């Protein structure tokens, strides 16, 4: 069973994000990077699948400049067997910033095709752009069935790996269980597993693992265009509810339930 996990490197949660000078992207000079969280869960699911099956290979895949190798190393340290790095230029033509989701999906699909994987896992969306496109577009390009928002994957047929059953998260706490044939692509939702911590032994073993670099194809023409990037403007609104305590409570519950939607 060969599993490819496509991951993305994104700015850290606490990173101070500033709009770049051209107003169409983010200034990366001061940003600390980390693995996209849903991708970390995809990797965890892959590692657990391999552990449950008792055999197999987990290949981790990432497109981006030199810096993404730290994220690939982290994946190797946590237990992935090999890494493939699709190298894009740091900036300018062909860099990630110049490519749309379709283009990135093409780069990744190309690399996956060469691996002939049984299963491709990736996070359902990225923490930075949040387009949620890359995974499903990849499935389309690879011509394999896909399922999204997956929390758990089960190998069927005694684990020979030809069919799987996945648990999908729907709205309002509903779950859907779907059986699928392999090969397939799944986009993984955060929180389905407990992530593992990186270990010293993992890091030391990771040094000996293969990290293959592949040059990215030239960027295709964008089908969309980023016009402007701006931070959200903070709106603070205070409204005083008046009336008796009972009335205020009733109004408050109504607002919280239907307007703020937290109840």
């Amino acid at each position, binding site marked *: 069973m060969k599993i490819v996990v496509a991951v993305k490197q994104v700015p850290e949660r606490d990173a101070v994000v500033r709009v770049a000078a051209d107003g169409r992207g983010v200034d990366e000079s001061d940003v600390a990077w980390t693995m996209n969280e849903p991708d970390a869960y995809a990797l965890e699911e892959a590692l657990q699948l391999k552990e449950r099956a008792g055999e197999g290979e987990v290949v981790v895949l990432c497109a981006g400049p030199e810096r993404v190798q730290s994220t690939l190393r982290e994946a190797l340290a946590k237990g992935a067997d090999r890494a493939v790095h699709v190298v894009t230029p740091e900036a300018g033509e062909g860099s990630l910033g110049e490519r749309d989701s379709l283009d990135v999906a093409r780069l990744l699909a190309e690399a996956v095709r060469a691996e002939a994987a049984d299963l491709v896992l990736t996070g359902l969306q990225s923490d930075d752009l949040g387009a949620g496109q890359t995974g499903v577009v990849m499935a389309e390009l690879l011509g394999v069935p896909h399922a999204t928002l997956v929390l758990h994957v089960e190998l069927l047929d005694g684990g020979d790996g030809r069919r799987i059953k996945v648990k999908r998260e729907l709205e309002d706490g509903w779950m859907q269980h779907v059986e699928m044939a392999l090969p397939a692509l799944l986009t993984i939702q955060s929180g389905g597993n407990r992530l593992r911590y*990186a270990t010293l032994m993992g890091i030391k073993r990771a040094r000996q693992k293969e990290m293959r670099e592949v040059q990215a194809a030239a960027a295709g023409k964008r089908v969309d265009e980023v016009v402007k990037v701006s931070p959200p403007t903070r709106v603070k609104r205070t409204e005083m509810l008046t009336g008796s305590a009972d009335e205020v409570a009733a109004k408050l519950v109504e607002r919280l339930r239907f307007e703020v939607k937290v109840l």
Partner: protein
Amino acid sequence: MIAGAVGMLRVGIELAEPLSFSVTERLLLMALIAASLGVFAWRSWPIASNILHSKKDADFSLRPVGRRAWKFFWEVLCQSKVIRQRPLPGLAHAFVFWGFLAFALVTLNHLAVGFGHGFLQYSGSFGPFYVGFAGIWAVLVAVSISGLFVRRFVVRPKWLGKRVSVESGVIAGLIFVLMVSYLAALFVGDKGFAARGLWWVHTLSLLVFLPLIPRTKHLHLLLSPLTVFLKRPQFSQIPKLEGDEDFGLFAGRDVTQIIALQAYSCVECGRCAEHCPATTTGKVLNPKKIVLEMRSYLNTAGPGSEEPLLDRPGSAMSMEAAFECTTCGACEFQCPVGVQHLSILIGLRRGAVNTGAWEDRYGTKLFLALEKQGNALGMSSIERDKFIAKQEFPIFDGSQEYCLWLGCMGSYDPKGREIVSDFARVMQALGVQFGVLKKEKCTGDPARRLGNDLLFGDLAAQGLKTFAAAKVTKIVTICPHCVRTIATDWLEYGVAPEIEHHSDFMARHAHLLPKQDGGSIVYHDPCYLGRYRDVYDEPRAVVAAAGELVEAERHHERSFCCGAGGGQAFLGEESGERVSHVRAKELIATGAQTIGTACPFCNSMFRDALGAVGGENPPQLLDIAQLVARGLAPRALSSDAEEKSG
């Protein structure tokens, strides 16, 4: 007794010794000595071999020899720890030990007599003097060993263990016979049959005693002086990992010579367990059993074995036990034979965490929080930014004297923030210039104590870089864990700027602090300030300025842990009774109006404990910085400070 001995001296004392030995007797004596030495060597060899075949301690250095010699003098020759921690049995033990030393010459002479070469001459003055001197010791030893015998077999304190040690009884009996046969020889006038009989009884006791030493806890007679001399110089020292295959104590191959030596030196007195917050609150961990299991591992699996150390069938050295330790260090501090439990326990954790063998929901959560958020509480660093802005803490820019290090608790914990804010007020009132760092990450203390070397190393390296970049020269903090980690543990990665705990800082300024009549205050010694850094008087000086200082039942180096250390604060519910509840009850029992703490972790533990066991009217809980701040007029002070800093 002494008068009697002096009286004997005056009349000239002589030891009854056989005048001559027949050839048969000499041959028999030689054969018996050879047999005794042979059995002794045969029984000792596997132990010596296990120690010698254990892994070399890569970081071992005899230096500082002076300190080692002092420890040897103080702990071995003066029996300081033996006596101080258990005065009555300790003194009895010390008499036996000193008696043995006094008897060294007598014993040599005794055997030499058997070959016709006795060298203590009773005609001169030294011989009679020494024989009498030894006689006094013989009385002391006989009385002491009888007392210890009664303690072990009649009183039976529970810390000695459930199993009655038969060989201890035999050894005590032999020692008693040795002393009595010696004393009897002082009073036997003739040199005939009685003298010969006593000589042989004494000799046989000696020759039986010797081979009993190696396979019983009496091995400490031989090993513990060496162990005390060779132990690692620092308290809770965590050795550097060497090479690419060293992940801590995972299997027998990782057990070092020092650890093996310590494991064989254990005398099973149980002081470690008696003072252990885990053992005494009903948890699985028992530090004495860990040491004995280590010995048993070496005896069965052997050094160099690939079998994991943790969780062997029926072993007390379990994963659960290893991760129950609060690293309070009471065990290591108490141990009279030089066993360093913390490097063993933390070593076992390193072996489990560095290889990923330890799976724990809370532990993983903590590690991921430290990896991602850089603080143990898993909060966003933006929360710290907001807190700094709200408190209007100046940002350290190199112009201020001190960098005020907030730590995770000071940055994110509500009570920790109050403590930091109050300490900042104290600094402002004293007119001391300080600033806080724009960004801080955890020092790595919980990762270090839980054995996560990867995470600790990353955090230490980042921390050193941060201090260097900000050009910090002096750090002050409210957290003893941060002090220990930055000042000692970081050394593996570089030298951090000088750091001091706020108790040191405030004690230095004690004469400037407001004198208050703040009622009775019981001070709780944090482990990482007391046992770890030997700071006891400074926080007390601060407390004394704020009110009337009261001591809890256990205090100073015997202080009982709050239960938070060693990462326990983050590891979820404990089994057995909560350590914090036990300590809180002890503090409440003093009747003090206020509990004074000097560590934000202790404070946090007692905050919860007082809610549960504090009753209707619990004492107030304040950090020593808050005790001082209580005496500062809030308004006047802050405007004052603005003038000074402006």
